[in-house]
């Protein structure tokens, strides 16, 4: 570990608490929650924990993104601040928060300020229904799956208002692109979700995970008796969640070579930071849904020692794949992107829907 001695001295008191605090927080929360049944304390604890989870994820996924990107490009990435640059996200956060929030001329100041929050808040709200473990979900509601999609649809409104409120032609073009992309990819994604609801018979995320108990052959990605196209459905779901979160190779909304930075061109400081927190929270939500629907959620692949650790392992593996894809494939064109959805993904998902319906009729569970 090569660290500047001054940096080492300044950061030494923070390293140990930081490394201990994360796991201790999760374990302590888990123990505490299993000991108290319901009530007001539970609501408050979950609200706090989910916000902290979203914030930590945003901070450390940026770090992971930079590391993954660097290693794919044969570089090292952040290494100066803390061991492996682990303190970098916190320092970046402080930097962003201390920056001035510039309000350009001619903007709609209210919408300009509200737009980043409209991206972040629905994503954090969606965490409420995600089952991290058997008893580790803030609210185990029957329509969890629907609720996540309901909140995800508000995200587009945030991008649109941000783009329009900036009074910048690049931002407006970017917002229009982001919406046409989101609308196009919502269709195959929702068709797959309908197929999954047909197979599972429930929109309760925890029940969906329960149905996949036992060895990994019971995961829905390998449930060939429901549809032989299950792995394809998983792949399409994953591609759609990439497109829904405006990630490369579908990041036409922020194509920096054409649109400077897209809808967040005019944002400075924490306005930009909140947009990014929202983006990473959405990635976490998308990968969580893929894990829950297809990869067995918190179920262990061998049938023993199931728990939240499996959920997190699968979640971060998928997130790593999202980053891997970003730094491997070049950006598509807008036409290629829309053609992929309307001409390839939607027909395949519709065929899968019909096939699953027929299979369910022939072999009812």
């Amino acid at each position: 570990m090569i660290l500047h001695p001054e940096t080492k001295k300044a950061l030494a008191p923070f390293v140990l608490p930081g490394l201990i605090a994360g796991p201790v927080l999760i374990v302590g929360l888990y123990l505490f929650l299993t000991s108290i049944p319901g009530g007001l304390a539970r609501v408050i604890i979950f609200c706090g924990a989910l916000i902290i989870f979203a914030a930590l994820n945003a901070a450390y996924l940026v770090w992971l993104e930079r590391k993954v990107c660097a290693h794919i490009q044969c570089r090292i990435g952040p290494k100066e601040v803390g061991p492996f640059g682990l303190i970098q996200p916190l320092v970046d956060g402080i930097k962003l928060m201390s920056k001035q929030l510039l309000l350009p001329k001619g903007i709609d100041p209210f919408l300009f300020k509200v737009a980043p929050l409209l991206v972040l808040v629905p994503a954090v709200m969606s965490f409420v229904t995600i089952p991290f473990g058997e008893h580790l979900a803030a609210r185990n509601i029957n329509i969890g799956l629907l609720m996540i999609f309901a909140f995800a649809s508000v995200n587009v409104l945030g991008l649109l208002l941000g783009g329009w409120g900036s009074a910048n032609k690049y931002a407006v073009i970017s917002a229009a692109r982001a919406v046409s992309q989101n609308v196009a990819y919502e269709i195959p994604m929702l068709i797959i979700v309908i197929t999954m609801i047909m197979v599972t018979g429930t929109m309760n995320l925890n029940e969906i995970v329960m149905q996949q108990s036992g060895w990994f052959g019971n995961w829905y990605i390998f449930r060939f008796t429901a549809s032989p196209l299950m792995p394809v459905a998983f792949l399409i779901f994953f591609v759609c969640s990439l497109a829904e979160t405006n990630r490369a190779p579908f990041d036409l909304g922020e194509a920096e070579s054409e649109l400077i930075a897209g809808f967040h061109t005019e944002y400075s400081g924490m306005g930009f930071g909140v947009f990014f927190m929202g983006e990473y929270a959405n990635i976490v939500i998308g990968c969580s849904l893929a894990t829950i629907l297809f990869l067995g959620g918190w179920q262990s692949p061998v049938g023993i020692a199931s728990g939240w650790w499996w959920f997190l392992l699968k979640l971060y593996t998928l997130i790593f794949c999202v980053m891997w894809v970003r730094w491997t494939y070049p950006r598509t064109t807008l036409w290629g992107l829309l053609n992929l959805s309307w001409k390839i993904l939607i027909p395949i998902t519709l065929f899968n829907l019909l096939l699953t319906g027929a299979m369910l009729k022939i072999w009812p569970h």
Partner: protein
Amino acid sequence: MSSLVSVEGLAGVVFLVVVAVTLIGGVIATSSTRLPRAVSGLALCLIGIAGLYYFLNSPFLAAMEMLIYVGAVCVTIVFAIMLADPGADKKPGGMTAVGTAGSLGVGALFAWGLAALGTTTMWPAAAVKVNDGSVKAVGHALLTTYSFVFELISVVLLLAIIGALALARSGRDKA
């Protein structure tokens, strides 16, 4: 009157907040001169209504309200405004005193009528939870009890699609 710190008291506070959000959203939607702001007000109002549905123990309706009205209708309106760009600098003329008084009067009359209807109607008591939001219950309701309404809505959507096609085609011929 239960204490504010209990779950029931907190639920009451949440109810008041939701009502306030709905009202404020409605006022913003009707009073702002900038269209995107009005749409944001509409979205806020609809989120408040979704909250009311959730408060009335209908999470399915609340989620659908968010998905369709906030996520689809409001986004479509903003998109249309962005494409049409109805001159942000053009200010619509203010209302005359007669117009203001008249609209207030009509509004008050309408509110009084609705309130009178609401208080005199014999509402069927919601003895049991209408719908637990499970796929089976929702499917059953859509395909039996509400099948006629469901079909009617699809006819409305069909009309909207045909109207959009007719507009788009005639526009193309002129150009």
